[in-house]
């Protein structure tokens, strides 16, 4: 069993390809009551800023067809409380599960600052890698999302790289015309890999109140609704940058969906929203992959990127309509 599930994502050796995604797994200690943390290939913490953040006003979520919107606003306990209160306990529980610390800031400078703190507290925290969440508005520069703005994006990533030698995965936003140049820029700035995708912009209107449901107006769309969008971008990035390790994310709630990501070129996957609805989602995705590999007498390593290896599929322009 270890053999067929064991895999790698860049420098990270993983007992299995299933991780829990940022913002859907707390700091690693929230699912204890359901199953042991060491079950996972790894997990990503909620995005941490240097200072604690309260996040946005309610309502913060809305349900959509096969998905949800959120405008949590990256509420988090802040770096210090994480190091002091969360990391030691989680480290004691996690076994071989990799811990990725997800970080962000309100400006490229702040990305550098928090990364420097992670580097400084590296021993105490014991994390295996950093995931850089560029999907937050640059509050100083009028709110453009850093992850959708090539210049700010490169700047933020470069600052993190300069501050730490930890393996760095950059989590990309799908709210761009083409994710590939951002993946390439991340690689050029020294990222060990990319995580894709984060949420899509979305809004729901409360037709009774005649106003947006979410307190902030718009939010991020996640869940099975966005599965094809994530698979598309993983496939495109893999095709363009075959050597760049990828965490596939977006709408995974079944092992079949995870398999789609792996075949599209993800080295491992992260399960997000599905864990809210079914706290066992990660475990079931993993169990399904295990059964499938056993039945086909194959392994995760053999599956990764399989959809790129069929015949002579030309890289056609994307025709829709």
């Amino acid at each position, binding site marked *: 069993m270890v053999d067929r599930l064991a895999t790698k994502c860049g420098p990270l050796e993983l007992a299995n390809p299933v991780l829990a995604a940022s913002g859907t797994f707390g700091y690693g200690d929230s699912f204890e009551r359901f199953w042991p943390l060491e079950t996972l290939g790894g997990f990503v913490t909620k995005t941490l800023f240097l200072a604690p953040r309260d996040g946005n006003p309610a309502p913060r*979520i809305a349900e959509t067809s*096969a998905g949800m919107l959120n405008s949590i606003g990256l509420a988090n306990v802040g770096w210090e409380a994480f190091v002091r209160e969360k990391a030691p306990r989680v480290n004691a529980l996690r076994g071989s599960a990799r811990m990725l610390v997800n970080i962000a800031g309100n400006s490229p400078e702040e990305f550098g600052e928090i990364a420097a703190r992670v580097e400084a507290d590296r021993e105490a925290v014991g994390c295996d890698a950093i995931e850089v969440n560029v999907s937050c508005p640059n509050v100083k520069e009028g709110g453009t999302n850093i992850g959708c703005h090539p210049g700010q994006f490169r700047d933020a990533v470069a600052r993190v790289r300069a501050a730490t030698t930890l393996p760095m995965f950059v989590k990309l936003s799908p709210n761009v015309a083409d994710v590939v140049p951002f993946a390439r820029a991340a690689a050029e700035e020294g990222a060990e890999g990319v995580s894709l995708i984060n949420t899509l912009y979305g809004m729901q209107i409360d037709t009774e109140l005649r106003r947006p449901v979410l307190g902030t107006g718009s939010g991020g769309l996640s869940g*099975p609704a966005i599965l094809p969008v994530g698979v598309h971008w993983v496939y495109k990035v893999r095709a363009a940058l075959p050597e760049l390790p990828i965490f596939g994310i977006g709408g995974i709630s079944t092992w079949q969906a995870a398999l789609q990501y792996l075949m599209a070129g993800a080295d491992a996957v992260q399960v997000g929203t599905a864990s809210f609805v079914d706290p066992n989602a990660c475990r079931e995705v993993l169990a399904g992959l295990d059964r499938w590999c056993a039945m086909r007498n194959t392994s995760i390593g053999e599956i990764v990127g399989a959809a790129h290896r069929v015949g002579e599929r030309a890289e056609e322009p994307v025709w829709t309509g």
Partner: protein
Amino acid sequence: MSQDAVRTLPLVEVEDVAAGTYWLRFALPAGLDCEPGHFFMLSAPSAGGAATMGAPFLGRPLSIGDVAGGRLHFLVRALGRATAWFRSLPSGTPLRLVGPLGRPFALPERPVHRMVAGGIGLAPFFYLARRLRHRQPAARIELLYGERTADAHARLAGPERDLFDLVERCTDDGSLGQPGTVVGMLDGPFEDAGAAWYACGPQPMLRALAARLESMGVEGAQFSLEERMACGFGVCQACIVPRRDPPPAYRLLCMEGPVVDPREVAW
């Protein structure tokens, strides 16, 4: 909470008790241990697998309505997608229940326990009354229960009615019981600060009640609040309640509630 906190249970029965209000009943799973004020997240099994057309995508929080007769009961009001869907389900439909979740009611020793329910805020009080009755047989248990209109008032059948020593009803329009709101009912006979106070209902009612109880000098009242929830166990950060004493500005209702002290909330 134990590791079997996620269960798939077949629906036993849906029973209407008022316009748009119904009991949703399941067989009580062996080993389930829950307290009044606890809640469960109810959802359609295998979300996303076979994609869910009208079945809601997310789970929905429901308070434990009652635990009796070998069954787990939820009292539900059909307000939107999920609560209409639950009601439409044939017996036998499997549903996912995650829980029990949250921080339940404390059961203080008091001569009088007074429950103030607005609308579907009635839901948690059957089981609360049952447990109090069991622990404090001599205590007096009162229910003040208001609805907008008569047809929204839940029928209370014999054994349910018998959980309370007194049931006082009101309607906004006076079509049943006293006219006015449950908070209005307090004037006069119910100005007893020494009772244990419990409340559940819509936000405006709870806000008014909190102010009223504070002016009466009531200590340790327990309010069961509501907020949108995606997970119910502290990860999604959706269910925030503004704190009277920040920072932090909010707390999570699913972890530090749903039962809270009204004096800690920034209404």
